């Protein structure tokens, strides 16, 4: 507070790298440094397996679906809320789409029949994600339930609906959808293209449209947003609907990649998505953060996960060390952000 009244103008004309890294705008730079360091570290430790094209490809397939979910969490966090139902929504979408594909494509079906089934399955999947998101938005914005509770409730509800449909078993998809999860376009994996496209569209929406401006303003100060004529209710509903759509996309990518869907899939994805969003510089209290940071955080986390697996693979329970490392990382990032914020006020 005191420094706001007496601004300490430190307009140093000489380029100061440390100053830049630790500045408030340095988050993207900081993340880029972390990404490079992690890449270098694991490339040295496992020079035989880590820096290979094959490994990069397999990392892309793993990271893309989590990345798409992290975008949804980031969006809702920008408004000061959160969406914990992302993975439950994605699984429900996968289950419905898979069920439709299985029902509509009998053995020896023709190309036309397969194409029609795909259109129906994808439409129903997208619509399901949209409805799930709209319902979240309705509960948060219209009913006025805190976002954590509303989406915890719908998490259980959507998972419950998925369980009721499948009896808890796995639903299988068809080869027809495999392109979305495993395919390539001029050598670039389709899930990566989808992730980048989603990031691009959302970045445009956030930076260049009225709605994007409203999201940031609502997240910074809901009361100020309201008094400046913004319809907070509509902005929130749209935000959660977008998050639902992103979950649907993730669900379809997963269904295509592993050719199956179940309510149990991706148990740790919610934590990971929140971790990626916070690591990427999205303020959990809302109002600030960029999707470019989220993308960099995704890469850093994937390097860490795969790298740790490769380094620790002889040890029993290497997976659990990863869980430990993720939790620790989240706490460290929170602390780092705290100190940087403090330093810059």
């Amino acid at each position, binding site marked *: 507070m005191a420094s706001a009244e007496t601004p300490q103008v430190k307009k140093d004309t000489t380029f100061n790298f440390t100053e830049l890294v630790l500045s408030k705008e340095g988050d993207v730079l900081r993340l880029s440094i972390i990404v490079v360091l992690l890449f270098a570290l694991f490339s040295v430790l496992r020079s035989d397996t880590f820096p290979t094209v094959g490994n990069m490809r397999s990392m892309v397939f793993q990271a893309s679906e989590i990345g798409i979910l992290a975008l949804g969490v980031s969006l809702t966090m920008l408004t000061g809320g959160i969406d914990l139902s992302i993975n439950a929504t994605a699984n429900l979408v996968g289950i419905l789409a898979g069920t439709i594909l299985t029902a509509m494509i009998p053995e020896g079906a023709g190309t036309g029949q397969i194409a029609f089934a795909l259109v129906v399955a994808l439409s129903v999947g997208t619509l399901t994600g949209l409805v799930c998101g709209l319902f979240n938005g309705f509960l948060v914005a219209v009913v006025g339930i805190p976002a954590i509770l509303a989406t915890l409730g719908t998490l259980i509800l959507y998972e419950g609906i998925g369980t009721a449909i499948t009896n808890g078993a796995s639903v299988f998809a068809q080869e027809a959808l495999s392109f979305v999860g495993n395919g390539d376009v001029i050598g670039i994996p389709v899930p990566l293209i989808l992730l980048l496209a989603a990031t691009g569209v959302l970045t445009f929406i956030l930076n260049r449209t009225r709605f994007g401006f409203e999201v940031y303003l609502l997240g910074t100060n809901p009361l100020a947003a309201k008094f400046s004529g913004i319809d907070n209710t509509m902005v929130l509903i749209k935000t959660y609907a977008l998050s639902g759509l992103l979950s649907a996309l993730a669900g379809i990518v997963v269904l295509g990649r592993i050719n199956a869907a179940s309510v149990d899939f991706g148990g740790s994805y919610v934590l990971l998505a929140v971790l990626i969003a916070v690591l990427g510089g999205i303020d959990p209290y809302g109002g600030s953060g960029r999707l470019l940071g989220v993308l960099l955080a995704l890469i850093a986390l994937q390097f860490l996960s795969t790298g740790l697996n490769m380094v620790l693979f002889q040890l029993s329970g290497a997976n659990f060390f990863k869980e*430990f490392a993720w939790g620790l990382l989240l706490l460290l990032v*929170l602390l780092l952000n705290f100190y940087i914020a403090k330093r810059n006020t």
Partner: protein
Amino acid sequence: MPNFREIVTRNEFLVLMTIIVLSIIISFINPQAFLTLANLFRILRSSIVIGIFAMGVLIVLISGGIDVSFPAIAVFALYSTVAIMFNLGIQDALLAIFPETTAYLLGFIVALLLGALIGMILGAINAFFIAQFNLPTLIVTLGTLNAFRGFLLFFVGTLIFREEIPQGMVELSRTNLLSISPPEQRTANLNISILILLAVTVLVWFLLRYTMLGRAIYAIGGDREAAARAGFNIRRTQYFIYIFVGILAGIGGIVFGSLGRQANPFDIVGTELDVIAAVVLGGASISGGRGTVIGTLLGVLLITLVSSSLVVIGIPSEFQKVVVGALIIIGVAIPAVQNRRAVTPQAT
């Protein structure tokens, strides 16, 4: 005296009515399975551990925070306690000194204290991050949930302890407060650990109602800024809250392991939503400042009733989650509609 209208619109009353209506429906459909003393005691027994956890969650919610890490603390405390007591041979040492019954009782008390101590330490880690740096509670505890569980599974162990459980803990599961044998029915046993839940409940009730600390917890949940201006020490209160939750989680973990007679490091984590749901159904508000012990107990009873009795009336177990999810949403929607305010309420 509150008037009639006030009573009927109270959250506790709504939950109680739901429990009663649900019980009536269940008894109509399947009286043989539901309306027995054995079944009642069974429901009570399965609500003991959730109840202990719920008391901790209640305090956190009243203070305007949320803690999702308590199941990890509970299983950490349980598993480490069993490992420590087994490796040091504490139960055997006690048996060598004291007569059998005393040794078992002391063995259980040692386990309880050790579990509480471990819970306290882990709770202090939560408290440090939350109180010292004023970080968002959901994100911190999401982080510690994974850190604690990952640490336990990677550094402590993944094997399930069965024979290694101290005999004192096993004895708890066999000791009944009440044992009634109605004619031509199964014997109904009420486990003694219900007394632990009772003690925890009374303690929390006293704390919230009659102490300055309790006032502080309500105050910082209602309006943090106002509480600070009124002279409440927010940091110290938050330290207390998260350490206390850790202690309760540790105790709950030991009771869980005692009743199930095993320590499985993969247990308990995953039940956090059920417990939070129970507390919220009982009327505690996640935006802080509201919540009662009675409401929480009723919420726990409702959740246990739903999850243990839907099968009895022929609702397939696959549909249970739909019912629980819908219940939670309705349960949080009613109070939200009742006191909707101008500002968009989103918890942090």
